[in-house]
């Protein structure tokens, strides 16, 4: 980060050499930080998009039945990871339930609860929008790890061939959901 002080030793006055060295060191740093400002720190890479969705087999909250991705094959799936301790999930959930009502015959909605307690999940569902679609319990975080979940909520859009088409980090906006759901069909 230094301008070499050797520059214009002989002459008096301004050293263009030092100026250029200094600018060569500092300008790229400034340019980088400027670019950094315009980058979205929340965007995360999603390498699974375009790849087959990892299989899972999880217990359903309502009756303890095992539900696997295999058994849902044939219909596109919207997979929503959430938790009771997640604030944005509260805003997102009622909308997901209403969207499931609207699209339910064409697309299977599935909620996967991430690191939570069953009794809290039930209370939460009662409080924030109800049970429009199956809720599965991800014991040991296995499924969330297999999907590369960074946090909740995260939503995966899986087509009828079982390939992940899109992934949304954070709460899904309504327009976004209908657009991405449309692409699945």
């Amino acid at each position, binding site marked *: *980060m*230094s*301008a*070499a*002080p*050797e*520059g*214009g*030793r002989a*002459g*008096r*006055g*301004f*050293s*263009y*050499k*030092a*100026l250029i060295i*200094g*600018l060569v060191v*500092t300008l790229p*740093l*400034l340019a*980088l*930080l*400027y*670019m*950094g*400002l315009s*980058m979205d*720190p*929340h*965007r*995360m*890479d999603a390498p699974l998009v375009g790849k087959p969705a990892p299989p899972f087999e999880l217990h359903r909250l309502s009756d303890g039945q095992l539900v696997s991705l295999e058994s849902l094959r044939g219909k596109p799936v919207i997979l929503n990871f959430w938790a009771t*301790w*997640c*604030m944005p999930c509260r805003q997102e959930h009622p909308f997901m339930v209403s969207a499931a009502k609207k699209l339910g015959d064409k697309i299977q909605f599935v909620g996967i609860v991430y690191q939570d*307690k069953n*009794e809290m999940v039930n209370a939460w569902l009662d409080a924030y929008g109800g049970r429009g679609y199956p809720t599965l319990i991800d014991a040991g975080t296995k499924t969330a790890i297999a999907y590369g979940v*960074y*946090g909740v909520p995260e939503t995966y859009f899986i087509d009828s061939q079982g390939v992940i088409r899109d992934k949304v980090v954070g709460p899904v906006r309504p327009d976004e959901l209908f657009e991405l759901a449309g692409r699945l069909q």
Partner: protein
Amino acid sequence: MAELGRLLILAALALASAGALVGFSAGRSGSARGLRITRGLALAFAACLVGATGVMEYALITHDFSVEYVAHVGSLATPLHITIVSLWSSLDGSILFWGFILAVYTTGFVLATRGRHEDMQPYTLATIMAVGTFFTFLIAGPANPFGDTPAPIPTDGPGPNALLQNHALMIIHPPMLYMGYVGMTIPFAMGVAALLKGRSGAGWTRPLRRWMLIPWGFLTCGIILGGWWAYEVLGWGGYWAWDPVENASLLPWLTATAFLHAAMLQERRGLLAGWTLVLLLVTFQLTILGTFMTRSGVFNSVHSFTQSPIGPTFLVFLAMVLIASVVLVAANVHRLAPGRPIESPASREAAFIVNNLLFAAFTFTVLVGTTFPLIAEAARGVKVSVGEPFFDQFAVPLGLAIVFLMGVGPAMPWGRATGAEVARRMGPPLLGGLVLAALGVALGVRDVLPALTLLVAGFAVSVTLRDVWDPVRARMTAKGESLGRAFASALRRGRRRFGGQVVHIGVAIAVVAIALSQSYQIIGEGVIDKGATLTVSDYTLQFVDARSVTEPHRERTIATIAVSKGGRDLGTMEPALNNYATEMNAIGSPAVRTSPVEDLYLSVMSIDPRGQSIGLRVFINPAVAWLWIAMGVMVFGCLIAVWPTRRSEASGAVA
């Protein structure tokens, strides 16, 4: 209230910009009247900022929720001392606090320089005021804490961030860090003044030595306290994770440390004037860069949803500071000749130069590592991480080399040492290092790195102790003084040197503590039912019970763990989980049992709802306490060096 605060900030902004303008013109004309006016404006600026901070504190304490910031961080349930410190619990308030500290330093500088260095003062004050203009602009505009709360005005607020409330160290560590960061403005301004005045010849660093030592001491303290806070609060058993925020505080510390050594070389031997100056400028730039990094949101991680509006403003300021510095240096290069060649690589000069090289390399590596994710994303569009394993690869060898040089430098004479001299000066201390390393091996150190650390640290401490002893012995020999008297007068005559030696001992202690705690940490974890035990190493931990306590601002679940070691009962420890009214999730309070040998560190991961079982993580961290002790030693050494003396100019005659 909000109105009054805004008014004071606007007044401070006007005064700061006026002070900068008058100061620069007084610097050019050399007018004594201009200087008087500048000093007056600086004091008035400081008074306005202190006043504005007072207004904010008043609003916080009286829960005046019509002030936006109070509505944002205040809460009726929060205890008074937390309310007071919530001034720096959130972005806008912390920038105001920043301004307050600048006001304190400005006042200190104006009062301390009455009638001294009058030729340099106008430019120095003008530069301080220019920095002040920027910060008051931030407070007045993009980060204004004195906004009006939109109606309806709430009757209660959410309270400050839960982590602030979680530990006392959170109350003192940010101010220490800010005192360090903001304080770098003063030596920077003095350096700029020296450049503007063309006074960058031999000895120009002398007056700003102390002004650099003060923020250096605060920064040292702030960094280690930050680590201590992380250790006591975050529950992962460590104190340093090479997080961008931590790196941001380390960067200016590294260059400031390099500067303090380069300045010695510059004063004593007239070497590296330009390099010394560059270090000074870079140190200030890094404090601004660090603030940008921690405040702009650029380096935020995945799930933080705070995007700050001050990023662009900060970047503009950083760009101005960087480019102005480059231009100033370029205009003064002809005065910044590196000085006469040194006589021999076997000399103290050479050791200092290599020391500076290593500090520069360290700084650059941390900077590259911290910014590389940005570089990679800009170039490849892919998110990458650069974490602890990367930094360790560089920090360990560089750190060891620096500690080794900490012994070599003082051991070598200025000028030139013959082979025999080198052997005589280095031999006994190296033996000291070997003894310490052997002692370590005898006590169970079996790995190369910690053994090597003991060797170099022992070497450096031996050199330091000999350097403390030699002048005392010389006095006893030559003047026949008693031991106590000889020590006292040696200390009086070489206070800065003695302070430096104490700091070196502190550094050696810190490095050994880091090496041992990093190499020999033991981790165990598990779920224990009530009454059952968990054994980790020679500790046996029994889960006695869990109880809930309701406090005004939080609900605590406290686990009682009975601890015994090798059958000896050590009493109970009480790690807890805290649920804050305003936070969705529990935040742990680890329990730490500190001893000089090792810490037993318990972190609750979970408590089942009925309190029948507990998930516990157990760390046995050797020697960590010595890191906090080392901080005390370093700060003490810094105080010795900074403490005002009547004969300050005469001190350090032999260094």
